[in-house]
C-alpha cells in the first residue's frame, strides 16, 4: 500500500465517520417525527401487542382466520377466542388474530408486549398447514414480513431502510411457485413401512396425474385437486429444521422468561375427508406430526391441546380447499376443549 493509498483511505474513513454521525442524527429526527406514523401505517400487528395492556386481559389468544371465520349459516358468529372469553367468567381474553399468521408472527407480537402487563396465559394457535412449504412461501407472507420489519429491535431509521430496500419476501409469482415446489421436494417422507413416494412432490405428481384415489376409486378432477392440496399441505415430517418449529421454540423460551402459561392449540383438520381422499398414509403422517409436537413441548411445560380429530366433516364449511374454517358447532368444540385444558 502506497502512501497515497493510505492518505485516501484515511480521507474516506473520515468521510464515513461523518456519514455515520449524520445517520445517527437522521435516526433521531425520524424517531421523533415520522416513525410513529409509519409504524401505525405499516405495522398493524404492533397495535396487537398493545391490546393486552390497554384492555387489561389476562389471556391472549393468538390465531389466524380459523379464529374469526364463520359460516354464513351460523347464528352464533363469535370467534373461538370470544367463546373462550364467555366460557371463562372472571377472565378476559384478548383476540389477536389476523389471516395467514403463523408462529413467527406470534413470536414478534408476544415479544413486543410491554414488560408490565397483566397477561398470565398465552394460547397459540398451531395450524398444521403452517409447517408446509405451501404456507411458508405463501403469497400472504409478503405483507406479513413487511409488517414484521417494524417489530424488530433495531434503530427506527434502519427498520424504515429495510422496508425501503425491500428486505422481505418480494418474490415474483414464478419465483414463489418455484420455492414452493422445491420445498415440497424437501418434504421427504420416511415412513416405518414401504411407501412408494420419496417426498410430497412425488406423491402430489403421482396423484395429480391420474383420476384415481389411493383405493382405486375413480373420481372427478376437482376431487383429485383437493386430494393434492391435502398432500401438499400435510405430507411432511416435522423436525427441528422446520422454521415454524424454530419459531415455536422461541415462543416457549419467551413465555418461560416472562412467566406466562403457554398453550398450543393444535387446530382440527378435516380428518374424515383426508382419510377418504388421501388414505391412511397421510393420516399416519399427520398423527405423527401432532405427536411430535406433544413430545417436544409438553416436557417443557406447554399444554398441547390436540384438536386434530375434534371437528367432524360436516362442521367444515369450506369444501373446495383445505381450511380450518369451522361452523359455530366446530368453533364451539375447539373452544370447549381449550377451556377444559385451561381449567386442568
Amino acid at each position, binding site marked *: 500500500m502506497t502512501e497515497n493509498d493510505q492518505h485516501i483511505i484515511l480521507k474516506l474513513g473520515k468521510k464515513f465517520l461523518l456519514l455515520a454521525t449524520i445517520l445517527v442524527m437522521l435516526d433521531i429526527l425520524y424517531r421523533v417525527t415520522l416513525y410513529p406514523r409509519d409504524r401505525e401505517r405499516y405495522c398493524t400487528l404492533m397495535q396487537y401487542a398493545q391490546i393486552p395492556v390497554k384492555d387489561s386481559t389476562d389471556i391472549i389468544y393468538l390465531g389466524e382466520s380459523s379464529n374469526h371465520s364463520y359460516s354464513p349459516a351460523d347464528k352464533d358468529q363469535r370467534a373461538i377466542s370470544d367463546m373462550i372469553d364467555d366460557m371463562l367468567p372472571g377472565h378476559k381474553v384478548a383476540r389477536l388474530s389476523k389471516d395467514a399468521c403463523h408462529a413467527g408472527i406470534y413470536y414478534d407480537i408476544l415479544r413486543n408486549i410491554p414488560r408490565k402487563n397483566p397477561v398470565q396465559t398465552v394460547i397459540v394457535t398451531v395450524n398444521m398447514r403452517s409447517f408446509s412449504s405451501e404456507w411458508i412461501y405463501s403469497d400472504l407472507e409478503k405483507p406479513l414480513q413487511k409488517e414484521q420489519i417494524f417489530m424488530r429491535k433495531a434503530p427506527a431509521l434502519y427498520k424504515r431502510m429495510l422496508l*425501503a430496500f425491500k428486505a422481505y419476501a418480494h418474490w415474483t409469482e414464478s419465483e414463489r411457485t418455484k420455492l414452493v415446489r422445491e420445498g415440497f421436494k424437501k418434504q421427504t417422507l420416511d415412513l416405518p413401512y414401504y411407501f412408494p413416494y420419496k417426498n410430497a412432490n412425488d406423491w402430489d405428481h403421482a396423484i395429480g396425474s391420474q383420476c384415481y384415489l389411493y383405493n382405486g376409486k375413480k373420481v372427478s378432477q376437482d376431487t383429485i385437486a383437493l386430494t393434492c392440496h391435502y398432500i401438499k399441505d400435510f405430507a411432511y415430517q416435522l423436525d427441528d429444521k422446520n422454521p415454524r418449529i424454530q419459531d415455536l421454540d422461541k415462543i416457549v423460551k419467551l413465555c418461560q422468561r416472562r412467566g406466562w402459561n403457554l398453550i398450543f392449540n393444535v387446530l382440527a383438520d378435516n380428518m374424515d375427508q383426508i382419510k377418504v381422499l388421501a388414505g391412511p398414509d397421510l393420516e399416519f403422517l399427520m398423527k405423527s406430526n401432532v405427536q411430535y409436537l406433544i413430545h417436544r413441548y409438553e416436557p417443557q411445560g406447554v399444554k398441547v391441546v390436540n384438536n386434530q380429530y375434534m371437528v367432524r366433516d360436516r362442521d367444515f364449511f369450506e369444501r373446495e380447499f383445505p381450511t380450518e374454517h369451522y361452523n359455530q358447532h366446530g368453533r364451539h368444540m375447539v373452544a370447549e376443549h381449550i377451556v377444559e385444558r385451561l381449567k386442568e
Partner: protein
Amino acid sequence: MLFNSIEFILFFPIVTILFYLLPHNYRWLMLLGASCFFYMWFIPKYILILLITIAIDYTAGILIEQWSDDAKLKKRCLIVSIISTCLVLFIFKYLNFCSANFVALAQHFGWAHPNKILNIALPIGLSFHTFQSLSYVIEVYRGNQKAERHFGYYALYVMFYPQLVTGPIERPQNLLRQLHEEKTLNYDNIANGLRLILFGLFLKMVVADNLGQYVDQIYANPQDFNTLDITLGMVFYSFQIYGDFFGYSSIALGCALAMGFTLIDNFKAPYQANSIQEFWRRWHISLSTWFRDYLYIPLGGNRVAVPRWALNTLIVFTVCGIWHGANWTFMIWGFAYGVLLILERGLRNIHVFDKIASRSGKTIIKVVNIAKTFVIVTLLWSVFRATSFANLHDVFSAWIHNSSVASQLHVNAITWIALAAFIVIDLILKQNRFDKWCGEQHPYTRWILYAVMIFSIIVFSSVQHYPFIYFQF
C-alpha cells in the same frame, strides 16, 4: 440483483473493496465472478444463454481478425455471428409474439395451424447485452477494435455487472480498453461514484416509485379517472420512466466509477430538448448512438435522397421500437418517432418558421419548442406504457370523454415534492452530471444535500416493489 435492494448494499462495497485489494492480474476474475453472481441472482440458468452469446461473438471476433485479408470470408463470419446472436434474442424475445400473431392471423383466415405458444421467460437484460456483443463484432470487422484473445476479459466486457442488465450499452473501444488498464485507488472516483449512486437511488426510489403508484392506478383502470387525472398520469409516467432509467444509469455509472471505470452518459436533460431530433440525442444515448452507428449510417444515413432518408429513418425507429419489446404498441411508438422526425425535417425547411423565429424572442421560441417536444414525447410515452392496444384505446377514450367525471386521483405531498425536486435538479444540472456539479458545491451545501437525499431515500421511498422499467427489455 436489484440496485435498490438490501443485497446490493452489501454486494457493492464487498466487490469494490475486493477489487482494490486484489492485484491487477486477478481483478478480472473477481469481477467476472461477481458479475455472474449478480446476474444469477435473478434466474441462474439464464447465464447459459449469456455464455452462448459470449462464446459466439468471442470466436467470431478472432475469426474475423484472422481472415482480415479475405473480405468475403470476413463478411460471412460477421453475418453468421450477427444472425446467431440475434437468433438467441429472437427466440427468447420475439418468438412468442410472432407465434401469437401467426395464430391470430390463421384464426382470422380460417387456416389450419398448430396452436402452440411457447412459454419462455425473457432473460433479464438480453436486449442490452446482445447489442453490446454485436457492437464488438462489428467494430472488429470494421477494424476499429482488435479482437480480444482473453476469453475472461471478453466475457467481462459483456457481463460487467454495473451495466449488464440495463446498460448503458458500451462500445469495446471504451470498456474493453479500460478493463485491461490497471486502476489505482482514487479518492475522486470513489466520491463521484458514491454521489452518482446516491443520486440514482433518489431518482428511482423517491421520484420514480412514488410516481409509479399513481401511473399504475390510472393505466390499470383508466375509465375510473377524468381527463385531468389521465393528463397527470401521462406526465407522471414521463417523469417516472425518466427517473427510473436515469436512476439506473446513474447507479451503473457510479458503481463503475468507484472502481475507476468510466461508462457512457445515457442522459443529458432530454426533457429540455427543443426538438424530437434533439430529444433522441439526449435520451438513452448509448442506444440511440448504437442505432446511428450500426443501422442508420450503414443504411445510408442522411447522405441519400430525401425519400430514401425518410425510409431509413422509419426503419431505424421502428426497429428501435421493436427492440424495446415484442408488442405492437412499441412498434407504433418507434414508427411514430420516425414519422415525427421526417415531419420535423420537412417543417424546418419551410422558411416562414425562420422568419417568426427571427422576429420573436429566441427564448420564447425555445421554451415553446421545449414544451411542444415534451408534449409529443409524453403522448408517445402513453403508447409505450399501454399494455395493449385495448389498454391504449381505454386510456385515450377516457382522456377524451371523461372530462366531467370527478377526480379520483389523490396525489400525496411527497410525490409532488419529489417531482418538483426532480424538475429543479434537472434544470440546474442541464447537461452537467450530478457528481461533477455536486463536487463544485461548498462542502456544507454538499453534506446537507447528502443528508436530505439519504433521509428521503429511506423515509419517503415507496414501500411497494417496483422493478426497474427497462428490466423487461
